């Protein structure tokens, strides 16, 4: 297996990854970008280069053009599964490859927060992000009766994108409690430091209202009803219970860092109880704490949004280039100063959004029958019983229920498990279950050929 060398390897080709690649190439470094998706764009800019009649995320076009022209080597469909010092092991189409890079920038973005409601594992239930992926990546839209349910600006954004494409939801069922807007008002002052943010939000709300889509607010007790597929959605709003027949339910409750790969490389993360997710420990904005030669950018560090992702991608590239001695201190200082200032302004704006759109479909609020670990079919109730039986930590729950041991290796359940433990046990260990390589499910043959190995004795137990 031959190994090629680059100055920088970027993992992920969303806004952060592309911005990092563009910046690094501009500084004269050689860059490889390993992208597990079939085309560049990540999630928010998915399909940015695809022939399409619709135009979403216009802000992404200059970035993606710059990326295409940058000279970075784009390895599409590449699933990185391990790191051994400067060597990255990855898999394309089932075959084992590796490359060497002096610096690594992790830009693996975010994923939908798993929404814990009864019926969440039925057929005909997807995430709002999934609808976006389908429309942007494959040009297809839902037919029949579908609803968007949950909390966050993405709900309204997706609804307006779908309607523009000729697919109209039956309803938008928002679970954001009305009181939050009022409570978060003191933080709204931060929005003024980044007016673009505020304007985008207001424009969206006006548009959806104009389209006349039924909009419910302050919904709670969400439940998806059906035997093996979704047949109806039930919820309470104000003081009535509504049951609406549906064919497809799209859930959304914010996004969380998609950081399994980073953690398997040794990155540390800390639980943020306000946002109910893990955030990466960094030195400064982008250097991954505790690891040599590794930086991280974008939502994979903490959820700061698409614009921040571009900014932090640039920052990470500058930091890495400086660390490699490819730019001098003066160039480095001058370049990062305005970026850091911009970052501070943008983060101030986020505080309002984070407060209003804090998660709502948390496992603590769910009934026992809601599925918490999809892969191993572990319900919220099963975990509650195990806690009662004295299994008082993430590891203890994992070992007695198999929660987190399935194909997704905790991507869809870790955040929910920690959230549930943190609420039920004041002294619970919120220690994240450890992740090691392989970060993707490679074959035994791929593992066998990844290293020449050593004498294995096969000695007895």
């Amino acid at each position, binding site marked *: 297996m031959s190994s090629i060398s680059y100055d920088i390897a970027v993992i992920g080709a969303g806004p952060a990854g592309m911005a990092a690649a563009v910046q690094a190439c501009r500084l004269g470094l050689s860059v490889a970008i390993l992208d597990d998706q*079939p085309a560049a764009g990540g999630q928010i800019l998915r399909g940015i280069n695809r022939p399409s009649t619709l135009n979403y995320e216009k802000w992404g076009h200059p970035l993606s053009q710059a990326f295409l022209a940058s000279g970075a080597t784009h390895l599409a469909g590449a699933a990185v599964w391990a790191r051994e010092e400067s060597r990255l092991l990855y898999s394309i189409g089932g075959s084992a490859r590796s490359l060497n890079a002096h610096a690594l920038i992790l830009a693996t973005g975010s994923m939908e927060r798993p929404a814990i409601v009864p019926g969440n594992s039925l057929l005909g239930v997807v995430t709002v992000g999934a609808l976006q992926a*389908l429309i942007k990546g494959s040009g*297809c839209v839902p*037919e029949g009766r579908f609803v968007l349910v949950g909390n966050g600006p993405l709900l309204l954004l997706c609804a307006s994108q779908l309607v523009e494409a000729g697919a109209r939801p039956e309803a938008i069922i928002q679970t954001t409690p009305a009181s939050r807007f009022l409570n978060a008002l003191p933080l709204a002052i931060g929005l003024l430091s980044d007016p673009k943010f505020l304007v985008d939000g207001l424009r969206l709300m006006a548009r959806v209202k104009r389209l006349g889509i039924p909009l419910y607010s302050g919904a709670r007790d969400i439940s998806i009803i059906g035997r093996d597929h979704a047949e109806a959605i039930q919820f309470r709003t104000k003081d009535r219970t509504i049951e609406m027949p549906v064919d497809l339910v799209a859930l959304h409750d914010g996004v969380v860092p998609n950081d399994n790969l980073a953690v398997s490389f040794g990155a540390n993360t800390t639980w943020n109880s306000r946002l109910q997710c893990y955030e990466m420990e960094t030195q400064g904005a982008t250097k991954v704490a505790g690891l040599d030669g590794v930086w991280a950018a974008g939502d994979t560090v903490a959820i700061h949004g698409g614009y921040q992702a571009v900014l932090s991608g640039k920052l990470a590239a500058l930091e890495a280039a400086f660390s490699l001695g490819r730019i001098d201190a003066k160039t480095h200082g001058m370049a990062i100063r305005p970026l850091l200032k911009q970052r501070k302004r943008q983060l101030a704006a986020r505080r309002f959004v984070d407060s209003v759109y804090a998660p709502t479909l948390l496992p603590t609020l769910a009934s026992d029958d809601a599925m918490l670990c999809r892969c191993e079919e572990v319900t919220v109730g099963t975990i509650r019983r195990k806690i009662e039986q004295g299994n008082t930590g993430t590891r203890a729950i994992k070992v007695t229920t198999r929660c987190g041991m399935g194909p997704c290796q905790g991507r869809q359940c870790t955040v929910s498990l920690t959230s549930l433990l943190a609420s039920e046990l004041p002294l619970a260990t919120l220690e994240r279950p450890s992740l090691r390589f392989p970060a993707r499910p490679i074959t035994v043959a791929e593992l066998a050929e990844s290293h020449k190995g050593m004498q294995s004795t096969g000695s007895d137990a």
Partner: protein
Amino acid sequence: MLFRQLNDKLKRVTITFEGEPLNAFESESVAACLLRHGVRFTRLAPSGAKRAPYCLMGACFECTMTVDGRTNVQACLTLVAEGMTVKRSSNI
């Protein structure tokens, strides 16, 4: 049908699913193609419960299928190609 293609001017390819031919559009994912054709489920959970693509971005592993003889391929991360064979896992 729960989903439909917006741009029917895209070039078409043919894939097979469980031995039957399916029309596909170049540059769509295998998962999208199956969803458009009303394929109800992609795999079974350990209890036998049917599962279908959920996140469509590679983070949930509900869409894993056998593609061109390779097992455990995520259909949402795989673009269709002329003559591609797609099957549900034989461990079901």
